[in-house]
């Protein structure tokens, strides 16, 4: 297999996902939403890459492309060297056991008419574990792994609390021993005291099972806590990728700086010392992004040439990549 770096579980190259905007009875194509526009990154084994951005920035679409819930418009998605971006449905179906998915809504992601046992065991059935006893043993094992009591296996989702439901979702994602797990906002619907339990569980599971995560969330403090590296998205593009610590201490892109400053810290003493940069305006529609650097109309460093061409991600050393003309590095 032609793999550039054998340590990478997943490599995304120039991924594009355009959704057509159609109008009228004949569904004439009148434009497209560039939900993901030329995104590239790689995740090493046992690593967590955080993907942050505001709603509509394309982070969820990126996750769904990797899960191949969407067929990307262009680009490569290499999983352990195999490009899955153009794989047909039949081959995909078998391939899917390599990836797990955890969704945001612990209420919506579990079928309300199935018992916990069926929900967690479903991937096993789908991927051909037909022996009932074997299935049961594995489900029991998974329950234990995520900290649920096996006696609750016969319950249906509405008899679980939000955190427990998310544990069920994690157990289901782990069922087929996937190498990569796409976590799409796994804690944002949970109460703060429950969030920590789930974050810790995800961290422990990663150490125990050698998992690789793509952690998609809008909450920067959560993403930063769990991730080794963080990628910041804005209107379909990645504008900065850096080591988690580095991103906080030395953010380069003006958008990243604004994003960091917008997140309040639960400490009034620190808060009083912080300078707050409040961004002007709102995120433009992804159907009609501004020309050039998408961030230029809201950027305080922008000059006319920022609207001329869009900056590429470039390395400023130490794996810290940024897409901005104005940043000196």
């Amino acid at each position, binding site marked *: 297999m032609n793999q550039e770096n054998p340590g990478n579980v997943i490599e995304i190259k120039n991924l594009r996902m355009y959704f057509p905007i159609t109008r009228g009875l004949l569904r004439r194509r009148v434009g497209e939403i560039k939900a993901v526009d030329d995104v590239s990154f790689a995740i090493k084994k046992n690593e967590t890459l955080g993907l942050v951005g505001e709603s509509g920035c394309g982070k969820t679409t990126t996750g769904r492309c990797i899960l191949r819930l969407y067929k990307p418009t262009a680009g490569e998605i290499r999983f352990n060297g195999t490009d899955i971006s153009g794989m047909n449905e039949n081959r*995909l179906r078998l391939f*899917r056991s390599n990836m797990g998915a955890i969704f945001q809504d612990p209420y919506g992601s579990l*079928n309300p008419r199935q018992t916990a046992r069926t929900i967690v065991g*479903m991937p096993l059935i789908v991927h051909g574990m037909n022996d009932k006893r074997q299935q049961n043993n594995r489900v029991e094992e998974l329950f234990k792994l995520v900290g649920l009591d096996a006696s*609750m296996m016969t319950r249906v989702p*509405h008899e679980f609390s939000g955190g427990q439901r998310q544990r069920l979702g994690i157990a289901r994602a782990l069922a087929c021993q996937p190498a990569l797990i796409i976590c799409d906002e796994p804690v944002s619907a949970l109460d703060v005291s429950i969030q920590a339990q789930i974050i810790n569980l995800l961290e422990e599971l990663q150490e125990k099972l050698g998992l690789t995560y793509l952690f998609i969330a809008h909450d920067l403090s959560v993403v930063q806590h769990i991730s080794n590296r963080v990628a910041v998205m804005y209107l379909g593009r990645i504008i900065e990728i850096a080591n988690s610590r580095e991103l906080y201490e030395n953010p380069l892109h003006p958008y990243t700086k604004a994003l960091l400053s917008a997140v309040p810290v639960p400490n009034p003493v620190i808060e009083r010392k912080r300078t707050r940069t409040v961004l002007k305006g709102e995120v433009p529609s992804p159907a009609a992004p501004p020309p050039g650097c998408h961030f230029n109309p809201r950027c305080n460093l922008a000059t006319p040439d920022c609207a001329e061409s869009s900056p590429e991600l470039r390395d400023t050393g130490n794996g810290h990549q940024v897409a901005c003309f104005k940043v000196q590095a």
Partner: protein
Amino acid sequence: MLEKTGRDAKPVDLAKWSETAPRYSETKRMISVFAGRPLPVIGFVIIALLILVAIFAPFLAPYPPNQMDIINKLQPPNTTHLLGTDSLGRDTLSRIIYGSRTSLIIGISVIAISSAVGIALGLFAAYFGGVIYHVIMRFMDALMAFPMLLLALLVASLLGAGMKNIIIALGIGMIAAPCRLMCGVVLSVKQNDYVMSARAMGMSNLRLMLQEILPNAFPPLLVMITIGLGAVILAEAGLSFLGIGITPPTATWGGMVNDGYKFVMTSPVLAISPGIAIMLVVFGFNMLGDGLRDALDPKLRGVI
């Protein structure tokens, strides 16, 4: 400025204090919602009686339904004929009792055919979308635009009258409603993350539709089927009244109204009593449907 507050109750028994949501049965809740309202219960009783009467018709009816007694024709209600006799001297009560069988058989068969086809088409249309959706839904629009009466006349003139053909005619005519309902419900169920999750784990389309989508789309269908049964019985009565339904002498309520209305001035009971039977049954199914709708309402599920 804070006032002291305290609860004057006993200390805690931690063992009794469950940390998780208590187990509680969804079925029990549904029954209690259903039974808590008078009209659904009345509807349920009417329908239960209808079914019992239909099953035990031979034991309940005082006379065979088609036994003619020309000498005693057009009798007013009396002790030997509780609801009188018709123009051929047949006992009205017995014919109403046997008519319940016709109504139920037609109602159930028509709903079975139309729901099976309609649900399948609606499921396919909504699940696959695109061209499949447009073809199926435009076909349903055409079917809905076609008056059911005309369709029944067409089938009757092509295949002749009779129970089987009535079932076919009504069955085809009633496909559109479950299909459109199913389509709408599936379109919304499809949005749920558990469907997304099932796709992400590699579930096949067929399994996804049957295992993940169908069970969750079922509650509104159940309501529609119940109310639909009433509608079918009413439609059958209408067709029989017009004489293009069940062939005589089979006892049907619609046919009885038709026979009776010629004598409405002299023996009003002949037309009125089967009319009341039709009304009660349709009312019963509607009330039952309403009760089911409330009991199955997902908004009421799991709320504290």
